[in-house]
């Protein structure tokens, strides 16, 4: 019986007069790749922020393996096993790539400040192992050889990958990816898509994804949740979502659904 990794019940986030997320229910089983899509301003990133602890929801709860985590501090949530990436890459720019990854491993390490001064055996061993593991992640995301580069000097695609490597270093059970293919060309996007799938297939990590690129979404998602103006308007497998009228209208405006139907009929007519 697959466990439910993350589940939200009637999650709501209200800013003053604006309800950004309105009573959203979401369930993601273990090792699933779930996507959240919706037009701009639909509340996707706000939803992410509620799940990852950046925001405290006004209503509803977030359950991680059955345990409520809403309102917890982000560092606690990270050590519980949830990691994330960011829409506009937020690396630690003045540190090297490999250091960024090792920082990602911070919650799994135990070195204290006096151990740092004393350099006792356990500490030295732990640091060495951390470097070794970071190099492994570096290689895993395809950035081997770039470890000593300052993060801000890396090309855009490499930075995105580095961010993911950093998120992986804390051995998360749930990985939240916020628009991982933003700004990428089709080849890079294809690579990233395959990479995300391998995270689930090889590492068994559950993935929750915000994406705008429909190829990616439809290609790898096990389930898709569609938000519009903060509410969930559809949920299901890719094929279902593609045919869903409400979704089409949310993206293209009212009347688009009927138009799309017309095109579909015309296509089958001409065929």
């Amino acid at each position, binding site marked *: 019986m697959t466990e439910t990794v993350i589940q939200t019940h009637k999650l709501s986030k209200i800013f003053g007069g604006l309800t950004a997320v309105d009573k959203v229910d979401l369930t993601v089983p273990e090792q699933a790749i779930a996507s959240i899509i919706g037009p701009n301003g639909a509340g996707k990133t706000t939803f992410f922020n509620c799940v990852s602890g950046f925001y405290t929801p006004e209503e509803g709860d977030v359950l991680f393996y059955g345990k409520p985590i809403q309102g917890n501090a*982000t560092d606690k949530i990270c050590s519980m096993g949830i990691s994330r990436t960011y829409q506009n890459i937020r690396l630690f720019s003045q540190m090297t790539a490999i*250091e960024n990854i*090792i*920082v990602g491993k*911070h*919650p799994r390490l135990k070195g204290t400040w006096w151990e740092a001064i004393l350099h006792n055996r356990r500490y030295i061993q732990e640091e060495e192992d951390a470097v070794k593991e*970071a190099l492994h992640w570096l290689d895993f995301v395809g*950035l081997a050889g770039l*470890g000593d580069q300052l993060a801000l000097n890396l090309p855009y695609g490499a930075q995105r990958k580095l961010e993911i490597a950093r998120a992986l270093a804390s051995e998360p059970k749930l990985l939240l990816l916020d628009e991982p293919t933003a700004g990428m060309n089709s080849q890079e996007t294809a690579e990233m898509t395959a990479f995300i799938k391998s995270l689930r297939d090889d590492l068994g990590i559950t993935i929750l994804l915000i994406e705008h690129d429909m190829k990616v979404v439809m290609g790898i998602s096990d389930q898709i949740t569609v938000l519009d103006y903060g509410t969930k308007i559809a949920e299901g497998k890719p094929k279902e979502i593609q045919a869903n009228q409400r979704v089409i209208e949310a993206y293209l405006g009212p009347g688009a659904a009927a138009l799309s139907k017309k095109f579909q009929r015309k296509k089958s007519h001409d065929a």
Partner: protein
Amino acid sequence: MRTSIKNGIRLGAIVGVVILFFHLTGFSVVASSMLGSLLANVDKGAAMEEIPALNLAVILALMGMIAGGSASKNKQNDKWSNSLVSGAVAGAFAGLLTGIFIFVIGFANFKEIDLRNYLPEIGPDVIDSLLFGGNAAAPYLYLALLTVSGITGAALSKGVIRADWRKKAQADSVQSFKTLTQKPGVQKLFGNKIAMYGFLALAALLLYFLPTQWGSYWNYIMGTVGIYILLGLGLNIIVGLSGQLVLGYVAFFAIGAYTFGLFTAPEPHAIGMNFWLAILFAILAAAATGVLLGLPILSLRGDYLAIVTLGFGEIIRILIKSDMLTDFTNGPSGLSDLTQPKWLGQTFNDVNFFHLIVIFVAIAIFIAGRLQYSRTGRAWLAISADQTVAKATGINTYKYKLLALALGAAFAGLGGALFASRNQFTGPEDHILMVSINVLCLVIVGGMGSIPGVVVGSFVLKGVPELLRDLESYRLLAFGALLVVMMVMRPEGLWPIGRPAMEAAYNQKHPKDSPPEGEVQS
């Protein structure tokens, strides 16, 4: 051509104003007199204001050349004609501005109007000197001199500094330096542990013997540099590593000094504690203050944190000085006759005290270095780079920020106690805002987060002014200007922080584990 003229006017105006500023603040006089000791044409007994015309002319010429040289830089159209024109215009405009000024003050002098009430630096003697010895043609001389030097500067800039042959020579020498340092022999030298230890041994020897030779004056100065290195290392942890801009660092210095003082001074409370124990208490008290201060203010954003800590520093100083607490702190009179360190019955003399400072500095550098490249140091850097993300990456930002404050404060406490003990005195005037700003300056100018940077910064900001004693009154002015200039031109500091090359180091140690070089899929 038009840009050249515009450039010329712009630079001419800037340099002209600078020259006026130098004249009005008395800097021209001081500089000329310092030049005089170099050129050996100033009578030792002569008054400061009687400066030979030659010295003033040299300074003016130098300014003119700078004006001309800077003005002549023309990105688009780097022709000789453009350069020379802008140089001439720059010099002429500067000459015009200064000439008018010289005319006005010369006239005032002639009419026996004493301007010293409003502009204390230009008394009649000074004006005479600025006019090349009361020369009535001085304004024209200024104009001519500056124009000519402007053209010269432009010519030099175009012909020598920006010349093609020099660019190539520079590139060549950089290249050969690179190849030299990358030669296997040289690399071995730098990375070699034996060489490093040898270097350290040499430094240790120097630090042991020099103090016995250079006299108590230099012992004091260098000791102060050492104490400021301590302070800089501490503030470096707070500002440079964990990114919290604390402007009231002197508060911790004061707590350290006063804890030491209150425990060891004969009045007001004659506790007469042992030196070493008092130092320990000073460090602990400062660290505790760091934590206490940190607790309420941790969630403040950068600018506010700065102001609050500034306020806190001032509050401490005012309280120490106040009548209200005089019974406890001895108020404005401060604490005197503090204990000196003793070892095996013998009180330290100034050489011994210097050695003590060196030992403490060495320990501090060791600790700071170890912290910087550790899990703790990485956590601090992450917090300073992006606190929200650092937290989401699992770092307990609260704890680490408090830790940085506590450790940084501890360094300051030690520094404060040492400073007080060395002077055998501490008072409210030792703990003014300027101390905080001094330490902040040296950390930033040296390079935030960088330990060699702190050492360099200390020497530059504390040691160099000692060498230029004559310019003492301009020290703060230069400080302020230096801060602005450094921020605009080189915010990373003189010796910026460097991050370790972990991948390379690992590959060196474990050659068979490493992935093939250069295999990059991005």
